[in-house]
């Protein structure tokens, strides 16, 4: 079954420390993965997608098919990174595809 697992409900780090938000997936085909972010009092929005191989706001994520992981990393966390982060998997079981979300990890960056 298609599934996204984010094992950490809450991750707390100090400003300037490295951060890694874990995401593991289960998918029978070729996966397409995304990270979405929700800052306080804002709507859910796309942070990055694996297919673009981009770095956004200093965050990167590498798809590791062997480990079925798509962890989100940033070498030096900033206070403004505090938010809820959701890993999502595109599921093409339906006619157009949809997103399967993980339960999210709340990142708290302390000064």
């Amino acid at each position, binding site marked *: 079954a298609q599934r996204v697992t984010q094992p950490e409900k809450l991750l707390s780090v100090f400003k300037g420390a490295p951060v890694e938000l874990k995401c593991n997936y289960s998918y029978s085909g070729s996966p397409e993965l995304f990270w979405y972010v929700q800052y306080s009092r804002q*709507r859910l*929005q796309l942070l990055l997608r694996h297919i673009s191989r981009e770095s956004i706001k200093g965050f990167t994520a590498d798809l590791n098919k062997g480990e079925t992981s798509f962890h989100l990393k940033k070498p030096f966390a900033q206070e403004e990174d505090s938010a809820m982060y959701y890993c999502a998997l595109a599921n093409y079981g339906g*006619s157009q595809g949809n997103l399967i979300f993980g339960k999210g990890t709340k990142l708290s960056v302390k000064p």
Partner: protein
Amino acid sequence: DAMVIQNPRYQVTQFGKPVTLSCSQTLNHNVMYWYQQKSSQAPKLLFHYYDKDFNNEADTPDNFQSRRPNTSFCFLDIRSPGLGDAAMYLCATSREGTSNNEQFFGPGTRLTVL
């Protein structure tokens, strides 16, 4: 600004009393989605429209219906809300299917069932 708008932001209804949540978009996107998100849970897709084609998720209860009268608007109807239907309901749009296409989310409607 082009965006996804949800009204109302907060909705209170009584057990069993039908309720309708609305979503509109100025992005002219083909696809509109409705998600349900309960506390500390992942957003869960209820259904989506690709243009006028309706796609219901297999485990979406029959109590939930949707209408899309035109490109801009999409409605979520809950025929007989139960206490378990209290949740945040998120509307999202994308230009085509999911592949390489970002989903744009509205701010959500928080539904309370008394």
